């Protein structure tokens, strides 16, 4: 699957994955995964736990090898790319107790110094630690020990560290895992602000559809190690091609029809000359429903079969 971006200009391509396979023993965690990400895009790799999201993003980050396939990230193969390539990427880690005695300001300044030799006229490296702390809302905690930070504050520090090298490409792996709804909301606002005004391409993984929808311009659905859908939230609903339900009342009788093209159907219905049509309702399945059905289909296996039996028994 090349997806809707295959026609994008070649020089703006940031990530290109071709037939990526990851095998542990006899187990394939990723099967021939293909996708691209272009400059400036915010792309979410969406899938249930165990779908292979973390494996995929770590291959792209250069933190993990792969069994087969081609990967080009920022013009290089992450598996062999050197430290100069590393300087162009940012990785948002999920910290839990590292650098407990340091303060956010100290740690940010320290990590930032590694990027000093990579500063260019277009991209000043590192970013200013104080401005970054302000951007992620940690000014008040800047000089407190990191161990006193809440989970949400820690995650925002993780983002600041991921950004301190002014990366061309930022990776976020399950960035809101373990955050409460408030922390999650704050985090979403932060990433949103970043993607709106920054010159940074973002790839994130999540198992939360609402999060993918909110943050990403494009969603790649990964299930059982395969990309099973690729597009914007709207495109996804269309691509998957679930049938919409059209209901109406005609001459006192209720009608329902499932159709892939509700617009044409309704046009025909209304222009057929019969004006007894009332209570017209077109209901598209929500993206949530579509997503769950899709994942279920690909991951189901035995479960799916028993469901089918169930269906048979009912009818």
């Amino acid at each position, binding site marked *: 699957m090349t997806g809707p971006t295959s026609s994008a200009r070649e020089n703006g391509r940031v990530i290109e994955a071709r037939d990526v396979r990851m095998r542990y023993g006899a187990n394939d965690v990723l099967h021939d995964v293909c996708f691209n990400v272009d400059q400036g895009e915010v792309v979410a790799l969406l899938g249930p736990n165990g779908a292979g999201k973390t*494996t995929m993003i770590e291959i792209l980050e250069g933190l993990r090898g792969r069994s087969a396939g081609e990967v080009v990230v920022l013009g290089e193969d992450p598996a062999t790319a050197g430290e100069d390539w*590393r300087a162009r990427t940012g990785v948002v880690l999920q910290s839990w107790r590292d650098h407990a005695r340091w303060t956010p300001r100290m740690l940010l300044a320290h990590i930032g110094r590694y990027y000093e*030799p990579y500063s260019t006229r277009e991209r000043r490296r590192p970013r200013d630690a104080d401005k970054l702390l302000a951007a992620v809302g940690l000014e008040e905690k800047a000089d407190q020990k990191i161990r006193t930070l809440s989970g949400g504050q820690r995650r925002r520090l993780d983002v600041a560290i991921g950004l301190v090298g002014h990366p061309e490409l930022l990776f976020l792996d399950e960035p809101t895992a373990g955050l409460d709804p408030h922390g999650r909301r704050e985090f979403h606002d932060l990433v949103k602000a970043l993607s709106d005004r920054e010159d940074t391409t973002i790839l994130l993984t999540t198992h939360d559809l609402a999060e993918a929808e909110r943050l990403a311009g494009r969603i790649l659905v990964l299930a059982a190690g395969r990309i099973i859908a690729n597009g914007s939230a709207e495109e996804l609903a269309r691509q998957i091609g679930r049938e919409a339900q059209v209901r109406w009342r005609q001459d006192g009788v209720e009608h329902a029809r499932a159709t892939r093209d509700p617009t044409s159907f309704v046009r025909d219905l209304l222009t057929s000359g019969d004006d007894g049509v009332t209570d017209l309702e077109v209901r598209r399945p929500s993206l949530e429903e579509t997503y769950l059905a899709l994942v279920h289909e690909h991951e189901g296996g035995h479960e799916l079969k028993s469901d089918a039996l169930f269906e048979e028994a009912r009818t």
Partner: protein
Amino acid sequence: MNVMSHAVRIGLARGWTDFSLSIRSVQDQISTAIMPLVTIGYLYYQRDVPVEGTTLMLPAVALPSILAALIVFGLVTGPAFQLAMDREDGTLLRAKCAPHGTTGYVTGQIVLHALNTVLVLVVIMVPSAIVFDAFGARGAHGWLAFAWVVGLGLLATMPIGIILGSVVPNSRATVTWAFLPLMALVAISGILFPITRLWEWVQVVAQMFPMYWLGLGLRSAFLPAEAAVLEIGGSWRPLETALVLGAWAAAGLSMAPRVLRRMARRQSGAAVAQARDEVAQWGQ
């Protein structure tokens, strides 16, 4: 700007930062001070016990050996435990995600553990010098010997700690991988009593490891010449000391970077997440 030397400079600053944060941590300072203080207390209690075959008192003979044991303990278990911890909690992964960050991290570790060793030496040697007058026997010549033995000992033992820290499965395992073997070495290396009292094959085993030679080197630095009668062959054997410690240093320094690189390559978010789950299970 040379990026490698830049990263080393960042690492030097990092080591100093970690050290000064440790100095300010009460918990760290208690664990740094406890062994030296127990040692001094014990030796003070034994201050009038003469050592058979010499005119010396026990503290003078025991101190250099105990210093050697403390140096080896600090330089092996220190980096081993810290590296295992830093792998688990993502410190190392964070370093790896910055350009040349691993170089900076390792430099920082070397600085941190070297400074910790200096601190332990100061904590035990300053009071001992006052209470026991333990270090004056050989004058400037002795201090010179002290400098090269400690320097070479550092090079011989810290790589062992770094290698162990790279291969231990987790930080809890450093007890069995590092601490217990070192306790066994203390028992057989002539630290607590002269090695010549042990069976010969045990002496051979002990002489294969740096702890014995570091102890011998420090005794040669601080004890009068007559005390050599307590040693194997009745000699300080400075040449052998330099050779064995040098061999360990060469082996360690050539192996440690390779083992470190291999370990660093395996660092990933998934590995850190797994470690976190394991620690959560252990209820730490």
